[in-house]
């Protein structure tokens, strides 16, 4: 019996995978476990290994085609099996399976609007009976403007396959009602601590501080799919890679020490750059941190990564003029201080400005007084 090669499911939230390239051509011999093709998901590029030995009898789909997890994308015939013995396989369109086998309940009008605006209706939280997704739920999800004509249906012809996921996700995110709160914090003490200890960095500090604070600020970890707080406090860390943005996840950061967190971030960043991230490195995050400090930039206002509803943007700590008390006196003076700009972007459908500001103020307090975290 010829073996079917299927689109793997790489992580809980994966809905489709895109074929980046086939490494073998039909007719070529392939060994068990040998890399067969590269696929790209919204989080990861991944080499799919052959689950059978023999001859690649058939490939279904070319570079750029999207398939749902579990869809058959290739056939490997064992020695002695003929190609005609291969089961007839129809290409399976990229239609993701419904969650838990249950059909998503959405009104016909809601489904039509979702189609028109290129929204995956399952990403929308339903407000109707039995959680039915209604017209205004989709309208609210896509908010002000429908996707621009160029953004939704087709990818620009020269767009690399690996970039398609980013392209599609950003087109969707652009429709969210994002708001921001921002603060500048004096980080003289943290700067000194990082220099003295040398075993953790700014990102690790932010990850641990945010993870612990998220426990006390459940609204900041609201999951857009359910409208309820995400049960975990895992943190996504935006990583720059040669093929674009990737966001591996630091698990259990609230219970980890700074140094341990730092080591994990270093490992993830290196793996992301080298293309070695595994599916396990892409758990669901409740919150994401994007740190452009290493690039020396002062400020970034990142985009929320649904179904998350908030994200922190960190800049570089730089020496800036700061109003401080002159030591030993009551006088205010302007003096140089290590200063860090923090921006919290949030989905205003779920999070109001006041709780966002409270979370950011609490986070800034940790940065100003790092001893609270040690």
């Amino acid at each position, binding site marked *: 019996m010829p073996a079917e090669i299927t689109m793997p499911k790489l992580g809980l939230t994966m809905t489709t995978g895109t074929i980046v390239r086939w490494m073998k051509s039909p007719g070529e011999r392939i060994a068990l476990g040998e890399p067969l093709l590269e696929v790209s998901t919204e989080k990861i590029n991944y080499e799919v290994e052959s689950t059978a030995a023999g001859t690649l009898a058939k490939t279904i789909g070319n570079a750029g085609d999207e398939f749902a997890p579990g869809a058959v994308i290739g056939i490997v015939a064992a020695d002695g099996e003929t190609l005609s013995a291969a089961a007839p396989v129809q290409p399976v369109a990229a239609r993701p399976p419904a969650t838990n086998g249950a059909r998503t309940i959405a*009104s*016909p*009008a*809601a*489904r*039509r609007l979702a189609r028109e605006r290129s929204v995956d209706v399952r990403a929308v939280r339903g*407000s*109707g*009976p039995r959680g*039915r997704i*209604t*017209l205004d739920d989709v309208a609210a999800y896509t908010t002000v403007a429908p996707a621009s004509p160029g953004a939704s249906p087709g990818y620009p012809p020269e767009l690399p396959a690996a970039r398609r996921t980013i392209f599609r996700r950003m087109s969707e995110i652009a429709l969210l009602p994002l708001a921001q709160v921002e603060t500048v914090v004096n980080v003289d003490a943290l700067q000194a601590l990082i220099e003295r200890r040398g075993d953790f960095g700014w990102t690790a500090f932010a990850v641990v501080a945010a993870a612990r604070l998220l426990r006390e600020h459940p609204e900041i970890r609201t999951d857009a799919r359910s409208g309820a707080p995400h049960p975990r406090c895992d943190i996504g860390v935006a990583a720059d890679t040669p093929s674009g943005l990737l966001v591996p996840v630091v698990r259990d950061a609230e219970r980890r020490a700074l140094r341990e967190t730092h080591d994990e971030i270093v490992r993830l960043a290196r793996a992301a750059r080298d293309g070695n991230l595994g599916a396990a490195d892409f758990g669901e995050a409740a919150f994401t941190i994007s740190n452009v400090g290493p690039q020396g930039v002062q400020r970034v206002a990142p985009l929320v990564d649904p179904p998350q509803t908030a994200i922190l943007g960190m800049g570089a700590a730089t020496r800036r003029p700061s109003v401080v008390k002159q030591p030993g006196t009551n006088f205010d003076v302007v003096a140089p201080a290590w200063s860090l700009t923090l921006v919290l972007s949030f989905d205003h459908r779920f999070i109001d400005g006041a709780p966002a500001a409270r979370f950011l103020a609490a986070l800034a307090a940790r940065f100003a007084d790092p001893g609270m975290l040690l």
Partner: protein
Amino acid sequence: MARTISFTEATLEAMREEMRRDPTVFLMGEDIAKQGGIFGQFKGLPDEFGIERVRDTPISEAALVGAGVGAALAGMRPVVDMHFADFITCSMDELVNQAAKLRYMFGEQCTVPLTLRAPDGITKSAGAQHSQSLENWFVHTPGLEVVIPANARDAKGLLKSAIRSNNPTLYFEHKALFPRKGEVPDDDDFVIPFGKAETMREGGDATIITYGITVGRALEAAETLERDERIAVRVVNLRSLWPLDYDAIADAVAATHRVVVAHEAVRVGGVGGEIAAFIAEHCFDDLDAPVIRLGAAHVPVPFAPVLQEAMYPKAPAIAAACRDLVRKVR
């Protein structure tokens, strides 16, 4: 210019104008000339037109409708009064097997310009045999036209159109509407074309599709919802059930995405089912919630006043259905 007159007076005006306009128009029925009709809807007509054109008949609906069909075939425009719509059942062969079929079966060599006036609906404890709304039977019968006025203006405009129509037309007039006053245009030639619904009220949150006496109940529901809960409901008065204004139904679904269909006739097997099914077939992608049908309970109309009043949809029930749709309870 418009005047405010009762529904009864509106039908009387329609009769007078059409009888003056066309000498082939005449009236037949039980107790219409001497008594003037149960609701006074024929009062004074014998004085102007004589008892040749306003004829009292024996109590035989089969003979009455049969005579009407014959007269219509012979070139007259008879208006036949059924006394109570429930009694149409005694003339079903004449109506369904003869009047509805002849124009088709004889290849248009003849027409049957017959108007059947049928007072229907629930009034105070008229009992199960005098309270029915049977319009759906005739909507289901090819060859018949079915119209149902909701107010004095409809009463005049639809009755004049029915008399002028070359097809057998059932004109159902709700007994409780006769004394109700409303504005009627002064124009002697004012008619309401069949197959044209009227939007009585605009609103974007939901639509009530209805006809006859239930239009008033729907308007009351819509006004309450607007005033107390800021729910804006469109009210569509179908006026004519066959031909049916499917375009108006589709327009309403496209505009409001939520629909309640309401009538006083029994819900099961009622015209509301045809409308709901049409919406499901042709307006599926416009729906944001299931279509809700409201109609009378599937029981003979009770004599006991308390039971009678509980068995058909009134304004609060119609408002509740709209509210449930808009608040996403259903």
